């Protein structure tokens, strides 16, 4: 399996990924201070995006009696996942998992074993490294925000204890494997070293060197080997969380009174503040996924401006034409759907491509969050499926199209042909779209089934929902003994 697509493997360059070269290349690269500062700021921008950004975006959309429960769930998830991540998460994502390496890493870096301030990891450029600690923190923030997104699917009706237990299980059995499958590889320097060895090999050592190169190429997650492109986490973050949110909405069930009682957002002002902070923080998320302050980062910068702007326009005009009035909630929903869609594409497509992507995302997410949801009747309270899963799927698949150099994209990268240099690789739209589609499919399957099983386990152990009386009273008082607003 691994070698069937060998040509494509070489060209694969996934996203925020890397490889951890604890031993480092022979010529021991030193991190550039600019790259380190860039990654440091990107990392804390992703924290800002989560708390307070995502928390306020979601919090404004619920009724005031559940405001604190949403803020609390998001914030608690961040704190808890930080600890889980350094305990075993980083190791499971970014180390070799032996026989299960296609799906999950191992425990060799559990408790951050063997890592210190001098440890470095590679980026996407040959000979460029960043400190491993900043890389760990950057990846840790991704692991924090992804499960926090799920809160949107189960808001206002799931017990705090059940949310916490579910998320601890979910990051372990769903997030870490998917992140490993998409982002784990040996890095450009390992590939270049092995390719150089092949080039320099004599007749006698050729077979051995080729086997070594093949081993380096295949020491990567399954989706990476398939050649799927995911710059900053369209599959790992958005499809993953979006599907888990939908499964949650279905398994936990609709909010009591859904469809009969009005459940309008209690503060669109806060939702607007949250959306604006999400956009701001998303620059850390997307540009930081380039791992160094180079051309890819500024490409992600321009795309992270244009796609959400275009998506906001298309959502607002779609709403204006079909519902009669352009709404603020529509506008900020459009911004977020554009951000989601451009996430897998940010460093791969051109600025005009990102406008096309954004326009498409605004319309498609609008249809899913309004017409489709109402037609099917599931209570995805804050549209984590309609925006994150749908926008993520659209973005992941269109990345395969818009990466085309003829459409202004960057094309694919080949680290093997000229060892030590990243050169353009052959691109075939149909093959790339197929790889993207397979990656989307596997992610949906993994998170769909995994989440379903985990919700059922939590339901058996401690139950998912509060009593109807407590739900009516509001989770702020029922779960936390406090209320958001005392007038």
């Amino acid at each position, binding site marked *: 399996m691994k070698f069937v697509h060998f040509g494509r493997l070489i060209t694969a360059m996934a996203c925020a990924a890397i490889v951890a070269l604890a031993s480092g290349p022979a010529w021991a690269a030193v991190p550039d201070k600019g790259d380190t500062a860039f990654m440091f700021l990107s990392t804390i921008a992703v924290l800002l995006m989560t708390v307070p950004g995502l928390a306020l975006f979601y919090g404004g959309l619920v009724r005031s009696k559940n405001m604190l429960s949403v803020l609390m769930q998001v914030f608690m998830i961040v704190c808890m996942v930080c600890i889980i991540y350094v305990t075993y998460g980083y190791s499971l994502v970014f180390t070799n998992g032996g026989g299960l390496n296609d799906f999950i890493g191992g425990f060799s870096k559990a408790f951050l074993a063997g890592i210190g301030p001098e440890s470095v990891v590679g980026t996407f450029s040959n000979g460029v490294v960043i400190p491993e600690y900043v890389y760990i923190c950057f990846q840790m923030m991704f692991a924090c925000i992804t499960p926090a997104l799920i809160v949107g699917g189960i808001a206002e009706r799931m017990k705090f204890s059940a949310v916490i237990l579910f998320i601890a299980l979910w990051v372990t059995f769903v997030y870490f494997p998917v992140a490993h499958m998409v982002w784990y590889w040996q890095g450009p320097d390992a590939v270049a070293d092995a390719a150089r060895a092949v080039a320099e090999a004599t007749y006698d050592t050729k077979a051995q060197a080729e086997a070594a190169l093949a081993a380096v190429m295949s020491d990567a997650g399954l989706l990476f080997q398939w050649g799927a492109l995911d710059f900053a986490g369209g599959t790992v973050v958005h499809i993953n969380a979006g599907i888990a949110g939908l499964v949650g909405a279905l398994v936990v069930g609709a909010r009591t009174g859904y469809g009969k009682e009005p459940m*309008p957002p209690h503060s669109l002002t806060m939702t607007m503040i949250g959306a604006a902070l999400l956009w701001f923080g998303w620059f850390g998320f997307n540009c930081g996924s380039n791992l160094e302050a180079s051309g890819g980062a500024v490409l992600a910068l321009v795309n992270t401006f244009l796609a959400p702007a275009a998506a906001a326009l298309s959502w607002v005009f779609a709403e204006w034409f079909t519902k009669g009035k352009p709404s603020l*909630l529509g506008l900020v929903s459009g911004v977020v759907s554009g951000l989601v869609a451009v996430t897998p594409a940010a460093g791969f497509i051109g600025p005009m491509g990102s406008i096309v992507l954004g326009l498409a995302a605004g319309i498609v997410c609008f249809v899913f969050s309004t017409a489709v949801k109402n037609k099917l009747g599931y209570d995805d309270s804050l549209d984590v499926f309609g925006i994150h899963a749908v926008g993520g799927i659209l973005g992941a698949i269109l990345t395969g199209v818009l990466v085309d150099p003829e459409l202004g994209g960057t094309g694919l990268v080949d680290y093997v042909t000229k060892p030590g240099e990243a050169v353009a690789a052959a691109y075939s739209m149909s093959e790339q779209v197929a790889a993207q589609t397979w990656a989307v499919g596997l992610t949906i399957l993994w998170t769909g089934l995994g989440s379903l099983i985990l919700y059922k386990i939590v339901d058996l152990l401690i139950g998912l929902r509060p009593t109807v009386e407590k739900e009516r009273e509001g989770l702020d008082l029922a779960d936390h003994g406090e209320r958001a607003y005392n007038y």
Partner: protein
Amino acid sequence: MKLVSAIIKPFKLEEVREALTELGFQGMTVTEVKGYGRQKGHTEIYRGAEYAVNFLPKLKIEIVAPSADVDRAIDAIVRTAATGQIGDGKIFVSAIEHVVRIRTGEMDDNAL
């Protein structure tokens, strides 16, 4: 003595207050209320979830006046609170048995 309760559109409060003050009425109680009459409600749409909002925000003003002055108060309110659009509100007039000023213990007309 009569109690005049008027339900009015919120943005009309200042005009009504000015007219009543000019006529010499000293004091008024204002309450934010919700309700509906012929105006019915309106529809709000949040990402495609449509809610019929049946209860509209209004203000209720209450003044107590000597019986002889009530018609002037009603005229002033009708004149200033009307927009001609549906939803301008209603005025209810009822009898008051006693009024006491808490600070001094004065009664009835003296307490107004």
